[in-house]
């Protein structure tokens, strides 16, 4: 009697895979990366290459030699994505060995100590970045000025980011710095100082919309973050600046767009339900603006996301709307 394969239903699958999702996010990051290479030159290439290679290698070594896993997971591309996102969050002129340390911390401490993909409570790339920010505060806040594509790596001219000026204006009310801000058009297109991948809002928005269209992410987290930041900035506009101008600078500066579309939406470290995602996004936007306005650092996106990452288990207690249940909200 010929027998056939038996397994419980369903016998069909959507064809989606972890690898496909990671690949789509990497694709969505490419426009911003191209801009970054054009702005910051070879530094952007070297930093990203070191970060990605180090992340993949760290994951492979830990899984092979420490955990002695039979199956290697680097093929799912999640380590590549972590590496790329870490690089996006670093200044392109950072010393290579600092990038290396960041990558080892991101994967080693941020991801593998918890059991690998899916188990980590905090966004690994941000764990790496914040570790570096605290360990190497000077190097991590030295921003190369965009000069078009150049071949110099470590000697790039450096300068302050718009966030530095915004904070100064907000704190002191000294509006003479308003002139120092880049034109809004430049801020939108990414002609300003900042981390490697965060400067071009346009490219990041294009990538983010692509991810929403491909159903890799949903709108809830980015929209709630951006809306919260806009509202906060609008209410808190310092004297001497137009509200719309201040809101626009807050939205286009720093890691906001990168964070909203690519870092906060990390599957593993964000909530499951729609309402959970919205609260998560509002929390990030609020905490970030508090840090930007009153904190010691000019930028608070990384901290805001990490703090809200810690709230995710709690936010996952929010149940989705059950079928047949009276409407909640």
């Amino acid at each position, binding site marked *: 009697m010929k027998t056939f394969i038996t397994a419980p239903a369903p*016998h069909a699958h959507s064809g989606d895979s972890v690898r496909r999702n990671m690949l789509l996010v990497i694709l969505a990051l490419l426009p911003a990366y191209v801009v970054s290479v054009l702005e910051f030159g070879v530094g952007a290439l070297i930093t990203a290459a070191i970060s990605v290679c180090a992340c993949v290698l760290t994951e492979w070594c830990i899984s092979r030699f420490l955990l002695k896993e039979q199956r290697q997971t680097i093929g799912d591309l999640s380590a590549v994505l972590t590496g790329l996102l870490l690089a996006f969050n670093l200044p392109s002129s950072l010393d290579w060995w600092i990038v290396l340390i960041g990558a080892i911390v991101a994967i080693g401490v941020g991801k593998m100590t918890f059991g690998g993909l899916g188990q980590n409570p905090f966004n690994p790339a941000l764990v790496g970045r914040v570790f570096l920010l605290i360990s190497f505060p000077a190097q991590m806040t030295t921003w190369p000025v965009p000069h078009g594509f150049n071949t110099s790596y470590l000697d790039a001219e450096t300068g302050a980011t718009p966030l530095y000026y915004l904070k100064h204006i907000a704190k002191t009310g000294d509006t003479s710095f308003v002139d120092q801000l880049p034109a809004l058009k430049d801020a939108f297109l990414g002609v300003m100082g900042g981390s490697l991948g965060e400067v071009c809002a346009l490219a990041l928005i294009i990538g983010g919309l692509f991810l929403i269209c491909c159903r890799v992410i949903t709108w809830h987290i980015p929209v709630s973050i951006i809306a919260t930041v806009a509202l906060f900035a609008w209410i808190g506009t310092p004297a001497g600046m137009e509200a719309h101008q201040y809101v626009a600078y807050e939205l286009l500066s720093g890691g906001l767009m990168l964070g909203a579309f690519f870092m906060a939406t990390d599957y593993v470290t964000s909530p499951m339900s729609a309402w959970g995602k919205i609260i998560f996004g509002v929390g990030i936007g609020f905490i970030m603006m508090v840090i930007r306005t009153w904190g010691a650092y000019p930028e608070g996106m990384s901290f805001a996301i990490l703090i809200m990452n810690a709230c995710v288990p709690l936010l996952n207690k929010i149940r989705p709307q059950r079928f047949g249940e009276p409407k909640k909200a």
Partner: protein
Amino acid sequence: MVNGIMRTFKIGGVHPQDNKQFSAHQPITECPLPKQAIIPLVQHIGAPAQAVVEVGAKVKVGELLAKAGGFVSANICSPVSGTVTKIGDWTDAWGASGQAIFIDVEGDVWAPEIDRTPDLIRSCTLEPKAIIDKIAAAGIVGLGGACFPTHVKLLPPPGKKAEVLIVNGVECEPYLTCDHQLMLEHGEEIIVGIEILKRALGVDRAIIGIENNKKDAIEHMTKLAQTKLGIDIMPLKLKYPQGGEKQLIDACIGRQVPSGALPIEVGAVVDNVATIYAVYEAVQKNKPLISRVMTVTGKKVAKPGNYSVRFGTPIEEVIALAGGVPADTGKIIGGGPMMGRAMDHIENMPANKRLSGLLFLPEAESIRPEEENCIRCGKCVQACPMGLEPYLLQRLSQLELWEECEKHDVMDCIDCGCCVFTCPAHRRLLDGIRPAKAKVGAILRERAAAAAAEKK
């Protein structure tokens, strides 16, 4: 109407490839009679039927073989004529065992009261009670897959009143086309069947829900229902699992059946088109449920099609009609790919009330990919049409936290498979959720029994 915004259910759902092109529009073909028929006594939800014939008895087509074994149970009438040779243990191709009646087929002699002419009989003046009795006698069960005895649905519990009959012409399972073809070929009988059920239920409104991938069926049924008062055709946006009873009610009338309740709670009774065709035959032609239309299909099947098969016919004979088992078949599924059950073998397996189709999957599509870590993407939560959290239920089930499973509404799970279908990490969520449902179900029954004992 078709061009407007179409309705669908509100929570979750997925879009599998419908793959209906292989067997769609293949005319219903009669499968020849077998030499021996195997008639299982469990072909429905509820208590097994009890045999009323003895070994050696001569039976005619349509005569009662086994009577309903309880309130929720169904009669089984003989699909063939011949001699009962054995009543005994039997195991099906899914591994479930029970009793079956074996009949050696001799000729094709029908019980005299059955009207075998093809004439359409429109008028029905029977009282509701008489209609329901005839349906019960005919052994009709829901042919959409659940096999719930139909006459039980038509007897609402005291205090509940049906307002609308919802007719399930959705056929949301990919590949299957038997209901589609039945609507095209026997639409008039289905309309009469609907009139009969409306009469039995005392409702003046019926809605036929049909998904928009069956435009010809929508048009055909709309034309037939034109002159009928109180029968509306509702084209529905394509989305799985729209044929689920609760989802279909939500899509058609915008009411959601509460957790643990029956459709009658929101005034609805749902019956599948194939069930309604059986009702027509039972009430108007005195013909009990002895056969059904099955889809035999698959990408490599030589002659995919829709076959009318008498129950008890070994499926090997139906498969032979469709050109045999394709060479590289890895899995044979009884039913559709989302909720159907894979068969271990095809020998000694008869067509029966619950077998809506046979699907042959090539080897490459038969092996489940290896599971990866859950990446907490939440896609299972988005896909679940009941608004549950499949990732959580699976984890709670693995930890054997049955009370927690209960709190997270595991009993609402309808087994539709959307979560597994959508999971990018290929996690076998239902493999954890199914046992949790069984455990929690047992706990609930125990609790009810204890409460009842305390009352006494």
